């Protein structure tokens, strides 16, 4: 499918994502202006503050965006009973984007005003202007061009950074980019990146035009008008914000998912089953990176998502690995209930364990069937692992030790990119997921975990106890999903989305119909 075809097919969704993206950018830059300009003015009055404040804004800009999101999510700060920071979604994304946009706005306001000719300032003061009058009638109008230039830079930064907001369910064009990365789909990546770039260019041109016309002279005549426009825009955005925050998941079930295809499909399966069987309205909050889904569940941002028993045991509870699937499920069940008031329901039926993968050709040529076989030749190999696998205790560190693996090089990349990297000979061994549809697509070979290093990763919906009490019908629905999927079926569903480029929503619906859950 070409990019153009994709756009014509998905016009509606594209429009929605563009609007979400614009919403994030307009609100964030709007708030950044409302904070940054007064701060910049303050700095011209109290120069001693300029070092700490500009320093803070500077540091904020250097924090990687995903790290900043991760840092903000558990904060949960309230102002007048309204949550302003914390949790997943647009709110936290906006806070992060505001922090990113502040520096250019503060700095340009500060320098714009500081660079006003001292003689002009003297003239104003000599004529009997108060500090406020001098600021509003002389300094700000003269600095306006420079301030707008700062807003312009901030906006462009914001358009770019907002794509990452999709990782915490804040929407926007990043959804296409993340989805595309996951599915190794360049068209999908471009479908997110190209409109985002166009928005950035358009914003740059528009604000550049403002900057020019607002220079001396024209500014004064058009000033009241453009001020009016700007305030109208801010009010509009604020209203949009109120609407956005108020339409959050009150009175509905929020289904979450992690940020890979299988999780999105499972999220859809759970969501559609709840909609059809329990008759409840469902909000989908998919694509949550890292441990965000777990944190969102604890924080009540979502009510249910599908977790894997091994992940719960090792990554969340930080316990020692166990080999017996039943034992693992028992452990996480009791620990989650006691510690988080969360309930593990019926296992869906398949085990998505780490799959140590090599190219089919290599396996044949070298006669490899197990990971132990690979350990003998690994010193000449380059390995590629996702960030998740590299960082978790049961991932690379423990795994390489258990098998005595030493690679010539280890590359850390996005999990979704590792399959392609392996197929294209950029790496020689990866750790994928056993249910990944790309395994058959790229003709990859899964080495057997002959030392049983990896614990079982049975997929099980995890749900808040509070939600189960509030909506008892939910329990029946989740019970019905027990044992509904085999590994093979899961791999097929994954391939339908990753390989055949079908929508997760449709794939899930078809599957549930086939199983008689939906009619």
């Amino acid at each position, binding site marked *: 499918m070409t990019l153009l075809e994709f756009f014509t097919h998905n016009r509606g969704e594209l429009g929605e994502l563009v609007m979400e993206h614009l919403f994030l950018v307009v609100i964030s830059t709007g708030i950044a202006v409302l904070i940054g300009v007064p701060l910049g003015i303050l700095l011209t009055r109290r120069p001693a503050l300029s070092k700490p404040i500009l320093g803070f804004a500077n540091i904020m800009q250097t924090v990687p965006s995903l790290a900043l999101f991760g840092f903000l999510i558990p904060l949960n700060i309230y102002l007048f009973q309204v949550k302003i920071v914390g949790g997943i979604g647009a709110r936290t994304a906006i806070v992060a984007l505001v922090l990113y946009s502040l520096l250019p706005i503060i700095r340009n306001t500060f320098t714009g005003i500081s660079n006003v*000719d001292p*003689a*002009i300032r*003297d*003239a*104003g*003061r*000599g*004529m*009997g*202007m*108060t500090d406020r*009058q001098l600021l509003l*009638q*002389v300094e700000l*109008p*003269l600095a306006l061009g420079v301030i707008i230039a700062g807003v312009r830079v901030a906006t462009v930064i914001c358009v770019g950074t907002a794509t990452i907001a999709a990782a915490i369910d804040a929407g926007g064009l990043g959804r296409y980019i993340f989805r595309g990365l996951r599915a190794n789909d360049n068209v999908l990546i471009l479908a997110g990146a190209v409109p985002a770039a166009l928005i950035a260019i358009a914003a740059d041109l528009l604000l550049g035009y403002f900057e020019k016309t607002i220079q*001396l*002279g024209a*500014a*004064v005549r058009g000033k009241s008008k453009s001020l009016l426009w700007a305030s109208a825009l801010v009010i509009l955005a604020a209203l949009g914000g109120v609407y956005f925050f108020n339409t959050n998941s009150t009175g509905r079930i929020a289904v979450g998912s992690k940020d890979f295809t299988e999780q999105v499909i499972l999220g859809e399966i759970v969501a559609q089953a709840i909609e059809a069987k329990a008759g409840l309205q469902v909000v989908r909050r998919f694509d949550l990176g890292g441990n965000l889904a777990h944190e969102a569940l604890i924080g009540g941002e979502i009510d249910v998502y599908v977790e894997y028993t091994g992940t719960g045991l090792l990554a969340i509870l930080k316990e020692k690995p166990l080999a017996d699937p039943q034992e693992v499920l028992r452990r996480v069940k009791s620990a989650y209930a006691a510690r988080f008031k969360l309930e593990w329901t019926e296992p869906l039926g398949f085990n998505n364990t780490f799959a140590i993968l090599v190219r089919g050709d290599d396996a044949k040529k070298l006669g490899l069937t197990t990971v132990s076989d690979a350990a003998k030749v690994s010193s000449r190999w380059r390995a590629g692992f996702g960030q998740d696998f590299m960082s978790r205790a049961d991932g690379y560190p423990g795994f390489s030790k258990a098998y005595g693996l030493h690679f010539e090089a280890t590359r850390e990349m996005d999990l979704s990119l590792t399959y392609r990297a392996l197929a294209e000979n950029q790496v020689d061994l990866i750790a994928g997921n056993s249910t990944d549809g790309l395994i058959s697509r790229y003709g990859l070979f899964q080495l057997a975990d002959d030392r049983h290093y990896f614990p079982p990763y049975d997929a099980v919906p995890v749900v808040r106890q509070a939600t189960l009490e509030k909506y008892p019908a939910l329990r029946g629905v989740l019970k019905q999903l027990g044992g509904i999927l085999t590994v093979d079926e899961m791999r097929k569903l994954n391939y339908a989305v990753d390989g055949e480029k079908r929508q997760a929503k449709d794939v899930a619906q078809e599957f549930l119909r086939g199983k008689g859950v939906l009619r």
Partner: protein
Amino acid sequence: MSKNEIAIEFRDVSFVLPGGKTLLAQLNLQVGRGETLVLLGRSGSGKTTTMKLINRLIDPTAGQVIINGKPTVDWDPIRLRRRIGYVIQEIGLFPHLTIEQNIGVVPRLEGWQPERIRQRAYELLNLVGLDAERFAGRMPRELSGGQRQRVGVARALAADPPVILLDEPFGALDPITRRGIQQEFKALQQNLGKTMVFVTHDIAEAFVLGSRIGLLKDGEMVLLGAPAELLQSSHPEARAFAACFHDGQAIGRPA
């Protein structure tokens, strides 16, 4: 001069920078109502410092500056400044405001009605010899240096302040424009009857405009008196300036 006739008085005024550099030492000075005092001196002699002490852009580190019988430190600086017109070199016009708006700044601060401000601006533009219809809507950058200076004077007169400070207002003009505008300004000055303090480093200008001249050197007033006294003084600084004056006269004299 009786007490009522004094508009501005300096009593042992000194101004010392925080670093210890003395810009003005022990200045004593009286300016009568309706009088034009010209402060003459080289760059850095303390002329501009003296001006800024009058409209309280700075406060004296010792002594008192008394305006209308009240020390400046007791004045609300905003009220004080609005009673004092201020003209500085051409850069003083606000580049983002039209000529009319520039002239109307103080009246607007004083809360005049827009119609009255406009009337006043037109009246003043015509008074300083600029066609109001043509110039009112223009921006400062569209005007020549001489035109800008006229606007500067008009702006200082806008709210009809009893005192006007002029800090080298014609300094950036070419000599020919400058002579012309000086003559016009002198005529204006006689009609208006304002108290004026005029700073210049041009002795010819001082002679044309000043009823008295104060000669400053390194922050000290070395001479204060009628123009003729300056020419007769034996003080080296006075002789230096007088020499310039005679040179200028010699060049201007027909052969």
